[in-house]
């Protein structure tokens, strides 16, 4: 188990290093940051001096080494645009994105799994057919369209929910939360549904197809032949066997929710990291972009690590392979 964890950690470190290299190389080609930072009347000498001060004249290898060293200490430099440390920008924006993503994920899981189980067990009921039709809509409509539709219905026509922003937030230490105020919760509903709808339909369909497969297996037939009740068979024996692929996908999708909240945040003007990233791209703000990329990669790696450890917890057979390898 320990060897398994250490090996996974080592692999994770290699992934992070590769992403760092790509982030570094990529963003050297997005344009000259100096042009974005200074006005037209800045002299060449002043530009040169700024370039020197930011270390942009050093050899590439030195710059990369410095980048890695700083990133490892959670220091991504100063934003070219707003002239403040990138880490404090992220600290300001991260809670908004995190709360949005988590709410969306809960929405997706708490509705998706029961719907998947239900449609898997009651294949031909009209409710199953309804769920599947709805999930088809969720899969095929693009996020921005869903967002705009929801705004049109609930904010413009019915006027019950806000169409943009986070509402009132409460500050707890360095974390700002919208979960403790009524307006914050109301503001969370539409973006969370927008962001989570696709994931929910994905989970529903995945759980359904896994249930259909597992319910055909011999051990389910045998469990019924042993006289176990429907609940024990469906939830105890069948659902647990569907969890490995489901957890894999949910894990990957959780990363995706955080990383690609960009569109939802843009539609709802949600003050999170996605919005920050879009603004950084528009201004060629390299430190912010590379920090964002690294952070997202880190989240993916972290989630995958957790998923791998969950496998071991769920499936005893993985324990064996983990020990032998």
């Amino acid at each position: 188990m320990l060897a398994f964890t250490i090996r996974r950690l080592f692999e994770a470190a290699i992934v992070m290093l590769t992403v760092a290299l790509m982030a570094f190389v990529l963003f050297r080609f997005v344009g000259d940051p100096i042009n974005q930072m200074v006005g037209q009347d800045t002299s060449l000498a002043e530009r040169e001096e700024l370039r020197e001060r930011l270390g942009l004249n050093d050899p590439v290898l030195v710059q990369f080494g410095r980048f890695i060293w700083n990133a490892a200490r959670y220091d991504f430099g100063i934003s070219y645009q707003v002239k403040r440390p990138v880490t404090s920008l992220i600290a300001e924006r991260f809670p908004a994105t995190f709360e949005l993503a988590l709410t969306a994920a809960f929405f997706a899981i708490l509705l998706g799994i029961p719907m998947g189980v239900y449609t898997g067990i009651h294949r031909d009921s009209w409710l199953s057919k309804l769920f599947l039709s709805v999930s088809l809509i969720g899969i095929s409509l693009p996020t921005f369209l869903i967002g705009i539709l929801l705004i049109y219905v609930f904010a413009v026509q019915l006027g019950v929910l806000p169409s943009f922003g986070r509402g009132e937030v409460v500050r707890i230490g360095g974390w700002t939360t919208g979960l403790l105020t009524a307006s914050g919760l109301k503001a969370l509903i539409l973006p969370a549904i927008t962001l989570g709808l696709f994931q929910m339909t994905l989970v529903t369909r995945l759980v359904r197809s896994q249930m259909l497969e597992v319910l055909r297996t011999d051990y389910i037939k045998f469990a019924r032949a042993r006289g176990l009740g429907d609940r024990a068979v469906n939830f105890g024996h069948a659902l647990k066997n569907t969890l490995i692929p489901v957890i894999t996908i949910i894990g990957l999708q959780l990363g995706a929710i955080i990383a690609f909240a960009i569109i939802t945040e843009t539609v709802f003007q949600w003050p999170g990291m996605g919005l920050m990233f879009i603004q950084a791209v528009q201004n060629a703000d390299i430190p912010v972009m590379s920090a964002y990329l690294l952070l997202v990669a880190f989240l993916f790696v972290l989630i995958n690590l957790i998923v791998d450890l969950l496998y071991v917890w769920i499936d005893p057979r993985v324990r064996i392979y983990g020990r032998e390898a």
Partner: protein
Amino acid sequence: MPETPALSVRNLRVEFPTRRGTLVAVDDVSFDIAPGEVLGIVGESGAGKSLTGTAIIGLLEPPGRVAGGEIVLNGQRIDNLPREAMRHIRGKRIGMVFQDPLTSLNPLYRVGEQIIETIRAHLPMSEREARARAIELLIEVGIQGAERRIDGYPHEFSGGMRQRVVLALALCAEPDLIIADEPTTALDVSIQAQIIQLLKRLCQERGTAVMLITHDMGVIAETANRVAVMYAGRIAEIGPVREVIKSAHHPYTRGLMGSIPSIEGTNDRLTQIPGSMPRLTAIPKGCAFNPRCPHAFDRCRRERPDLMPVDHSLAACWLVAPQSAEARS
């Protein structure tokens, strides 16, 4: 039979409604099994053996359904019980053993958890009592170091050991009847004999009736008291195992016996029944076996024979009908 049979099946009919009409997969099947008796059911794939077993335990997959007949377990009719009542029959009064022990156990739960769960579903026992009973059962089915192995996962057991666990599971509430559906087919030959002996011993000790479904005549010869031969959803012949093996009355049974290799056999070639069993959609008129039967005559193509007594058996063949005794040659 003087005592109440453990299982009595009367005119069982299993149907599958399809778009192109209703398929009759099990047609007018009747038999009894006495307590402690082993009834072998043999036949080719698709003859309806497994479906008969599945119908008795009430686990037919829709759209399949019992369309007629009666299933009586120790005097209680069980084919018309409500769902929940039937669940309490399964596992408690009828145990089942499936073909493949590798896939019969849930891979994510410890062997002990699965046995304890089954015991507690049927008997009023605490977790600790059920665990003690589970260990006893494992010892009884011959698992070495049962107290330790009870906490093992199925993948830590060999195929033969897993089938022993499955047997323990089937026996855990002392059922009246065990339905064993090809219990040895997936096992090594050397293990097969052990499992069959074990099954036979355990059931004899308890007076449990066994319905042993297999296509292995060797297993039947060793284990069963009586044997029923099924063909195209019907029983072709049923009788004491020696009589059916040595002097079968139905040409199909004779063909089936002729296709078993024997060590003493002088023939180099095994006999083979020409053709194959008809599909359920195209069962011929008259006797279902007539197109493949070397002795078929006119009546076989017109009228369907019912089971008729002959010696100690029953056979569904016009050759054994009193008035056509002369046709036998």
